[in-house]
């Protein structure tokens, strides 16, 4: 079977001079699942937009089903049987599932009215044909994100797509939802569809893809059968250098307790106990990692420790001072840094520039301001140094954060949080949604901070991350700390699993290995 899609020497230069694609060649074989992997900003999304007609290439040729094509817009691509599922789902929340599916291709009766019977027939038929179960008459806003994504796929299928592009589809899904998605994708493959799958999660690529193309810095580095490459090889080809997946060595010098939490309880507005009488401490020079399925009180705990939420009872101490009822600024002034869970929501002001985001916590201090006037000259130099030190890919400190890729936005947050010389770092999902290269850099920075005697409190849904960098691991389940482990080689995901799921509990068992 010949390739369904051939990209020959695709070059894309944006008007601002950024060369996103520097001559990419890929053949996509019919009826395969083809993963395209690369770091944030490597040019994957641009390439997909070119295939889908949303962007036009400066140079190169695209052959689709054996003939050369020049799509001027996505409608022409859709007409030829190419469908794309965007990272940000393209659904109207108040419309029903069926309405969303037929939007733009509505069947009509009497010239002007919607043919509601036909709409139901069309959508039901599509669901049955492809084995998708979605509640057709429910509104999209009432459905979980995994279901919404299935609606997107159905939308593409109802338009008879043969080649389906998914742009980082798993970024918004839980592991369970990801399983369901992968099952659907394999089903679609059996029905003769070709799937292009964009990702930077290597595990998933190994799990789902038949073939893999690795893109680095706008060029295709290699295209290979997925089974011929292992995760480490893919990661290193992506980044272009060796990557350390080993656990970092345990700290040698652990100091005095710096963060102390005593009998902390939080009951929310609906009278649900989210945090149930927990106590623990984080010492100088160690990284304490919280492992746990999301939604077991981690978010609330971090918000209480950073002053964003008020505890119901109990206390938290930083350096022996009670911080339970302090404001976020007062807590920061005790040298507590906070890398928030959701960088777009709490980490940055997206339309402000990098330098404005960097000084947002310190603008009122000397030397950033002199009296009531900001010293922009100083701020510019200061930011330029941080951009260099933290390897942020940006033209200058004046670049708005919204123009950066996810990994670089996270670096801006990390740069701000680490540059005010904290003594405690609260890192909540510090590497979520960023590529392996940036991830490794964040891990190294946290390790360096630890070795300088800084206390680090890590909260992560990524068990690999917790195991890689933590000195000590606490497992949180249903608002309680149910287990504590010193991180040694024999602590594995399998060992932590039962505690995270609430099957085991060290507090309740009389004898426990630890």
């Amino acid at each position, binding site marked *: 079977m010949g390739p369904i899609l051939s990209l020959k020497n695709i070059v894309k230069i944006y008007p601002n001079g950024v060369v996103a694609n520097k001559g990419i060649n890929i053949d996509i074989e019919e009826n395969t699942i083809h993963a395209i992997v690369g770091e944030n900003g490597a040019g994957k999304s641009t390439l997909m937009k070119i295939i889908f007609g949303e962007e036009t290439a400066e140079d190169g040729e695209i052959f689709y089903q054996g003939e050369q094509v020049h799509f001027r817009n*996505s*409608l022409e691509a*859709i007409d030829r049987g190419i469908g794309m599922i*965007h990272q*940000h*789902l*393209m*659904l*109207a*929340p*108040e*419309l029903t599932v069926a*309405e*969303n599916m037929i*939007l*733009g*291709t*509505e069947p*009509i009766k009497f010239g*002007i*009215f*919607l043919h509601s019977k036909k709409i139901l027939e069309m959508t039901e038929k599509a669901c049955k044909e492809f084995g998708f179960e979605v509640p057709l008459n429910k509104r999209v806003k009432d459905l979980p994100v995994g279901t919404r994504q299935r609606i997107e796929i159905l*939308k593409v299928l109802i338009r008879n797509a043969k080649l389906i592009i998914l742009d980082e589809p798993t970024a918004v899904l839980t592991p369970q939802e990801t399983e369901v998605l992968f099952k659907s994708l394999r089903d679609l493959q059996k029905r003769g569809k070709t799937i292009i799958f964009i990702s930077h999660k290597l595990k998933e690529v190994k799990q789902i893809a038949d073939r893999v193309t690795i893109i680095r810095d706008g060029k295709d580095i290699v295209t290979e059968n997925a089974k011929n490459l292992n995760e480490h090889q893919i990661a290193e080809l992506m980044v272009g250098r060796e990557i350390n997946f080993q656990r970092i060595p345990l700290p040698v010098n652990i100091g005095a307790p710096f963060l102390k939490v005593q009998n902390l309880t939080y009951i*929310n*507005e*609906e009278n*649900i106990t989210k945090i149930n009488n927990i106590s623990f401490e984080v010492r100088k020079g160690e990284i304490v990692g919280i492992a746990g399925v999301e*939604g077991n009180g981690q*978010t609330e705990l971090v918000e209480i420790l950073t002053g964003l939420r008020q505890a119901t009872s109990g206390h938290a101490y930083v350096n022996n001072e009670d911080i339970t009822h302090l404001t976020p600024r007062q807590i920061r002034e005790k040298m507590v840094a906070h890398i928030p869970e959701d960088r777009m929501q709490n980490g940055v002001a997206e339309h402000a520039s990098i330098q404005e985001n960097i000084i947002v916590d310190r603008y009122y201090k000397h030397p950033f301001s002199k009296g009531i006037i900001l010293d922009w000259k100083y701020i510019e130099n200061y930011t330029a140094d941080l951009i260099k030190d933290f390897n942020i890919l940006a033209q200058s400190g004046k670049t708005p954060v919204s123009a950066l890729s996810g990994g670089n936005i996270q670096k801006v947050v990390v740069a701000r949080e680490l540059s005010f010389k904290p003594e405690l770092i609260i890192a909540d999902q510090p590497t979520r949604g960023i590529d392996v290269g940036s991830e490794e850099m964040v891990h190294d920075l946290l390790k360096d901070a630890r070795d300088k005697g800084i206390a680090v409190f890590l909260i992560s849904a990524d068990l690999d991350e917790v195991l890689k960098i933590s000195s000590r691991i606490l497992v949180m389940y249903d608002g309680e700390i149910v287990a504590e482990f010193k991180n040694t080689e024999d602590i594995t995901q399998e060992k932590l699993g039962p505690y995270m799921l609430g099957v085991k509990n060290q507090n309740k068992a009389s004898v426990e290995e630890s």
Partner: protein
Amino acid sequence: MNPIIKSILAPKFIFATLRVMTPILYPAIGVAVSALAGSVNIALEGIMLVSAFTGVIISAYTGSLWFALIAGVLAGVGMGAVLGYFHLNLKADIIIAAIALNMFASGITIFLLYILTHDKGTSSSIKSLVFPSYQIPLLKDIPVLGPMLSGHNILTYLLFVAIIAFYYIIYKTPLGLRIRAVGQNPEAAASVGIDVKKIRMYSLLLSGFFGSFGGLYLSMGYVSWFSRDMTAGRGFIAIAAASLGGNLPLGTFLGAALFGLVNAFSNFIAPLKIPSEFMQSIPYLTTVIVLAIYSINKSNKEKAALKEGAK
């Protein structure tokens, strides 16, 4: 029984409510249809003024009610088109453009009124036609219901046709589906090939269409002349009515009915020795109070939803 209470309980109170809500519900539908497409039209005040003026002038000069109707509606739709052109083609902020349009409408109608009648206040020197009122056979003889529902102006009857038409357009036609989709997620609509600009333009034209009936009713039904700024804020109360009703057909109807009711109420208790300035402020005061309650309610709901999401 207290005569005031008695008069409020009388059928003619409902009759008055329907009469008063007519020039509120038409523009409220206009606001709602534009809001559903995501470009809220706050120029209904101006649209109504221009339609009211055009209707009176054309009826006086041609002697034809039909010409007046057609001209009045075209004027309203034209205002919608101008707003759409500024907002969609020239990329002006729709709020600013609508404010400009409202001020323009007030000025141009007074200016033309002076040129045509040498009067800057009212058009009483020329003879405007009015839309007729009808008694409905059979219905008019039913006690209680008859005096409530019969004897209204034709445009008040058409109000029910308009709200049903609004419902059908929004829920039963591809245009309505696209209007809603564009309002909720323009990118999603564009991604399936819908021309977002075109759909918003249609919604603004519809907005002008519905609004123009409110204007025509004011000058050629409610009274029989045009007077300067005669809309007296009804175009703005309409925004409140529509947003109270979530911009949906039944809700918009109930929102306008509420304001009609309050208005009628303030007229009916006029015999009491309450300063008339206070009485006249009641409808506006209600607007403020209702909107405050509404937004407190809404923000509470949003907070609850946030909590829901945080779980």
